[in-house]
């Protein structure tokens, strides 16, 4: 199963050069990590979700949130009891469970995770893998390092699909035994063979991928060419200017409005 993160489509984000787009991605990740205001983080997340909606459709805008939902739930449950700064909102016996500081931090963390996941999702859904390699090379990363990054990224959805395939196989084998809808313990128990299988699948991929790359001439002494080209830097000057403008405005908002 060969899968990719790219979603075919049209729109300004698709035609945006991968280099400024990548710079913007890195900048937004840093911004999400440094913003401590729930309001600003919330506005940024909303903006990114709206961009996903506009570029990929309404249904897709919930995919990044859905993919990290367990992490968000754990954050929401575990953060407040361990961060008890500020005025107390809820006590359970002698223990403080909820404070306004804890609520604020939880909100910021949830928005931060959602924001970072969403910008990555948006970037890889609107950027072809090969364009990303070219962007990384153009920004000074050696080809092998760029290829390693993109192959690793390719294998994330690949393993996700493998997981689905294997759970499908499980479903077909357990169907009719009355245990397919077993309790939590049973489901947890049946998760182990699936995880082992994914691990075996991933380990088996290593030599076959190495063979495939070798058979396609990766690592030859001669210089490597590319079947795709990026525009010269001058040709994307407007996009670069727009990127710089956006980064300036967002930095100004984050610095000047520390709510």
């Amino acid at each position, binding site marked *: *199963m*060969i*899968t*990719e993160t*790219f979603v*075919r489509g049209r729109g300004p984000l698709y035609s945006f050069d991968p280099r400024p787009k990548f710079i913007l991605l890195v900048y937004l990740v840093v911004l999400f990590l440094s913003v401590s205001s729930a309001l600003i983080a919330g506005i940024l997340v909303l903006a990114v979700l709206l961009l996903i909606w506009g570029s990929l459709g309404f249904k897709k805008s919930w995919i990044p949130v859905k993919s990290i939902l367990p992490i968000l739930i754990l954050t929401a449950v575990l953060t407040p009891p361990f961060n008890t700064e500020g005025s107390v909102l809820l006590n359970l016996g002698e223990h403080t469970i909820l404070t306004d500081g804890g609520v604020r931090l939880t909100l910021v963390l949830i928005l931060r995770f959602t924001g970072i996941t969403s910008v990555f999702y948006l970037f890889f859904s609107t950027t*072809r*893998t*090969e364009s990303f390699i070219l962007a990384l090379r153009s920004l000074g990363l050696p080809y092998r390092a760029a290829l390693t990054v993109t*192959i690793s990224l*390719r294998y994330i959805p690949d393993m996700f699909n*493998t997981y689905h*395939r*294997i759970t*499908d*196989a*499980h*479903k*077909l*084998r*357990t*169907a*009719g*035994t009355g*245990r*397919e809808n077993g309790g939590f313990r049973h489901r947890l128990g049946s998760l182990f*063979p*699936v995880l*082992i*299988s994914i691990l*075996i*699948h991933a*380990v*088996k991929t290593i*030599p*076959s*991928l*190495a*063979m*495939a*790359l*070798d*058979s*396609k*001439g*990766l*690592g*030859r*002494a*001669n*210089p*490597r*060419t*590319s*079947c*795709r*080209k990026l525009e010269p830097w001058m040709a994307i000057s407007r996009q670069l200017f727009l990127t710089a403008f956006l980064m300036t405005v967002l930095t100004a908002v984050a610095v000047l409005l520390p709510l």
Partner: protein
Amino acid sequence: MKKGHLTIKELNFRYPSWSGVSERQIFTDVSLELLPGEISVIFGGAESGKSSLALVISALVPKHTGGKISGSIDLDGLNIPGTGPAELTENCGIVFQDPERQTVTTECYTEVAFPLESLGVPFDEMDDRIRKNFDILGISHLVDKPVGETSGGEKKKIALAGLFVVAPDLWILDETMEELDNPYRVELMEKLKASGKTILILTSKYFSVFKKADSFYLLKDGTLSPRETGVFSRGFKKLLTEEGIIPDFSKLERSKPVNSGFTAGRPDSLLTAENLLYRYDGGFQLFIDSFTLSEGETLSIVGRNGCGKSTLAMLLCGLIEPSGGAIHAAGIEGVPPGNGALPAQLNAHCAYMFQNPDYQIFLPTVYDELAWGLKEAGCSPDIIKARVESTIVEFGLPDASTPPAMMSFSARKRLQAAIYYLLKRPVFILDEADTGLSFSDFIDLVERLKQICRGLIIITHNLELAAAVSDRVVGMSGGKIYKDILDFSADRLNEWLTESVDKHGDEE
């Protein structure tokens, strides 16, 4: 001087031992000479060492697997075992048995471009070469397609395009005819002949496709038979028949499946579908206005690569839900007539053997794999042990403690079949299950399944098999079932497939 002169002398190879797998000799004193421009075919049954030989000749083994090698492999004066595989790109190219394992990018175009990029072919020249070879192979419609949206056969064609575009001096094709439809196999042989390159084909079947090749060998028990040239001799044909490479249908009984004891007084239609619709994001749409599998029937579905056969199979066994229409399983208890069966109900009644066995094998040993379903079904340890042991013998599987990951492709296929055999489902769907199995192994599997199931659906590109084992054959093209093929001799099926392309175009 024309290039592509391959000389192999006294080649020996053995893989290293692994936990659960002892060191084993793969071939002994293999000697072979291929003259420039010659097409040579090495036949061999399951686990005869064909893939290992292909990988050794292309210098990928033992580099990536370890193992002991002795003897010499010389290509136009180049010592292959002493050269890095990447440096051989212009000299020797290979198409793997499993094309998914050879794919490194996510787009068909960039996948074919990858070796050209490695060779440093200039940007301006590359596009022409890629498009020209997509065109030569009749797959221009795949140029802009993501690899993930292609069928197994289309992936093989993409791997072939990667070879055609580089045009090395020696081409090695490992079971490349598998998963390709029959008219395409014939076309491909013409294209290979026209290339003028030295070509080594390793195969376990499709004897008749290779009649125009120049030399033939049989790899058996690690040794290579003497060279046969031109038309096959009677003795060689006998040898191939004994090995299960030439099908021998004379012993085949068109026996009806027997009742596995699910319901009594059931209607004749076991599985039916009406106005079944499934849409992919990429635009491909499957629409089946009417489909029936009757009680006791063995039905084959044939069609060219990418026509929607596997999608139909996944719908019928409830792995994907239709966008429209319904599937009725008349024999399933608890499903009121008129209602469509739920996916979970279909899961429990249709065993589906995936094209790729690795998605259905996920436990550490052969024993664990076979015992898993029985444990889930609540069988006692003694019954599990007895049934697993007898199944290992019946399906010719390696020792119970062998890790499936270390087994050959055909052994993993047999294990996959054995797993579902033990589950005893009323309906079995075999999706290109013949891939990687010899004719005799596949026929044996079909015969075994007929003994325990109430209906069998076989999806195959092997028209001889379809003709021999089926009670009925339907043809698919462009996401639709076009008709029941009443006269389904292998020749007639081949004609139908060729006509289906003329009428409906190649699959998009």
